[in-house]
């Protein structure tokens, strides 16, 4: 049989067979035989011929057969390699399916099933199991440990905001602190709180306040500067006390500890992936915290009503916050960690309309002392 030299491995042993092959265009097949081949000649139909992509060696073509095997791809283990450029060109013309990638039957079903299972498992752990566990553990944790953790968090916060200031950020004007203490008494009078509240003011221009685990509440000076009056500060304080009582900060830290690794694991470590991890984390954390914020607002309104502090101050504060946010790009609601300021202001206004008689949260003198607590 005159033909082209080729090498054949039968897929049973590593022994090499030198063969000669011809392309039988009429029969639509490739025929090869060789002296060491016990069962030749072999006929390989063009329609079943396949090869591999991304090959480095030039000038050679390794052929294999499409076959129903339980291998990783539906391929027969035998291999036939030829180097004759003319035959390779003819084969490429004769076999349109040479580079085709075949799938085992039922592959799409497996992809869908596994994909659904993975999405369900990750969703279940992120949105059901971890939040539940975090809630349980936040209740189980001994209060003194929580306080210790909260102190560490507050210290870290002070360091981060202070950016290297040696004397720390804590404002310690005694008159200001006395005023703050009076405001706290006014709000919490007659209430049985789980935590001994520790109020601190940091000298920083950010308009914000934080509730760390274990009753640590931090107000930033910027908030005192921007607040329209003592009622607004009292509203913020009541809101933070709401977080403290519900152990939101502890819960949040526990949840974050659980979900941190999972997302980056799912999305891999690439630029696009890193961005997706960021978005995903925003999405999860914000859905947790929006809920917590809404509850803290409700708690605050209830506390203001009990202390007979006008919640119009709260509405003004949120209006002001909304104006300050208004300039920049707004995050869509599902990504923002807080509910829209306008909605929160509206809720406070509605509450103020039905509130009855109120008294300012602090007298003028105390309010001035509080405003200058950092001077």
């Amino acid at each position, binding site marked *: 049989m005159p033909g082209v030299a080729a*090498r054949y*491995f*039968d*897929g*049973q*042993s*590593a*022994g*090499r067979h030198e063969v000669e092959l011809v392309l039988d265009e009429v029969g639509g097949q490739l025929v090869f035989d060789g002296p060491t081949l016990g069962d030749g000649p072999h006929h390989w139909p063009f329609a079943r011929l396949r090869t*591999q*992509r*991304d*090959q*480095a*060696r*030039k000038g*050679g073509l*390794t052929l294999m057969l499409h076959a129903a095997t339980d*291998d*990783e*791809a539906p391929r027969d*283990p035998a*291999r036939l*390699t030829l180097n004759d450029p003319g035959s390779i060109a003819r084969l490429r013309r004769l076999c349109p399916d040479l580079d085709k990638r075949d*799938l085992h039957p039922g592959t799409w079903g497996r*992809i869908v099933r*596994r994909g659904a*299972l*993975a999405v369900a*498992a*990750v969703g279940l*752990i*992120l949105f059901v*199991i*971890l939040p539940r*566990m975090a809630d349980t*553990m936040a209740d189980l*944790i*001994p209060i003194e*440990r929580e306080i*210790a953790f909260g*102190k*560490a968090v507050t210290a870290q916060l002070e360091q981060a905001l202070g950016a290297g200031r040696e004397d720390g950020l804590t404002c310690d004007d005694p008159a200001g602190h006395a005023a703050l203490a009076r405001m706290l008494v006014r709000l919490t009078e007659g209430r049985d709180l789980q935590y001994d509240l520790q109020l601190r003011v940091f000298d920083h221009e950010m308009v914000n306040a934080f509730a760390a685990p274990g009753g640590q509440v931090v107000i930033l000076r910027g908030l005192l500067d921007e607040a329209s009056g003592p009622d607004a500060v009292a509203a913020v304080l009541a809101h933070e006390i709401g977080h403290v009582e519900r152990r939101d900060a502890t819960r949040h*830290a*526990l949840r974050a*500890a*659980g*979900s*941190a*690794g*999972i997302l980056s*694991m*799912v999305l*891999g*470590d*690439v*630029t*696009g*992936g890193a961005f*997706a991890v960021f978005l995903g984390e925003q999405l999860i954390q914000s859905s947790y915290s929006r809920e917590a914020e809404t509850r803290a607002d409700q708690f605050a309104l209830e506390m203001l009503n009990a202390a007979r502090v006008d919640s119009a101050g709260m509405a003004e504060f949120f209006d002001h916050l909304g104006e300050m946010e208004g300039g920049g790009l707004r995050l869509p609601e599902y990504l923002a960690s807080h509910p829209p300021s306008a909605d929160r202001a509206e809720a406070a206004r509605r509450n103020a309309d039905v509130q009855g008689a109120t008294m300012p949260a602090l007298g003028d003198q105390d309010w001035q002392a509080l405003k200058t607590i950092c001077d």
Partner: protein
Amino acid sequence: MATQTMAEPEKVLHGQYDGERGALLRLAVVTALLTTVTLGIYRFWARTRIRRYVWSSISDGRDNFEYTGTGLEKFLGFLMAVVLLAVYLGVVQMILFYFGLTLLGEPQTPEQAMLQSVAFSITFVAVLPLIFFAQYRVRRYKLARTRWRGIRFGAEKGAWGYAFRAMGHWLLTILSLGLLLPWQTWRLERYMTDRSWYGDAPFQQGGRWTALLPAMSHIYAGLFIMIGGGMVAGLLGQPESGGAVAVLGFVWLLVGIVVYRVKAFIYLTENKILDGNIWFELHIRATPIVSTVFLGGLMVGIITVLIFGGLGAAVMFLLVPAVMLGEGAVFIAVVAIGALYLLAYAVSASLVLVWILQPIIHQVVEAVTIRNADELDYIEQRGHDTGADAEGFADALDVGGAI
């Protein structure tokens, strides 16, 4: 050794590597771009295609290796691993965090506060056995998907046994201050080699662990100089010169670690036997490979700087005129810059593969000699291995690298 007593000329095979820098770079950049565009999902196919290229570059001058793994099976294995790991990691991380909170007291000093935050990140320990588990699974999967002359390589199951031993050996290595590192290297490699097969022919790891001790010399030298420098700085009150010596010692230590790994690889390869009568020689010294690592690393650094410098210049070149033209032009310029950034990222992510990994594989493959290769003809096929998780765990845990 039957062939030698029959006094026939013993057949010898020499390794050959045909991969090229340009072709691999093109493949790596294209697959990296596709990976970014698909938010990371294409990475399984990217790794598959790069392995196909590298494997097909390796031959004995006639028959090349073949990588038959598929991207799809890696993706499916990954989905399976995600289910198990999501549950394990989520729960374990939170429990550890909880105990970190409850067991430690109130931090009095910055040191204690630091200790506490270290305790919070102790999750790493919970993942450690899984990392070793994944390492063995990767080796098994790669072998199961490698064929030469139509015959499959393969490895037995044994990932948990490996993870268990690796934990123990690392503990011993740390407790012995690194002195028992060669024992670890040899025992773990033997564990894997003695479970590896080519067709129906088993590999065996020969040699002794003590033979690896001299390869540690540069590690000791580096440590010695580093500690010496520290003592000069501390005891003699000369922080500048002592510090410089300590830095020199540290660099020496880094080089020493690479030297050790290369020398250990050479020794371990030369002491492997296939089917009891086929063995290997590696005609290479550590120096060229070590210099490939460091010079290649230098090249990667330089090219990365150039790429991102060029990107910065392109940003200026595109944005400044665009701002003058108005909003539409700015939008187009931003899109163009985004595309350029992705391209720059894809190229820089491919550099280690092209400038370090492939050159090393090239040198090693071309230095391999297979002795008594006639015996290869009698090796028979082995069965298909499902590949278990197809390195899904390794991918999820970020173990292993580009190939």
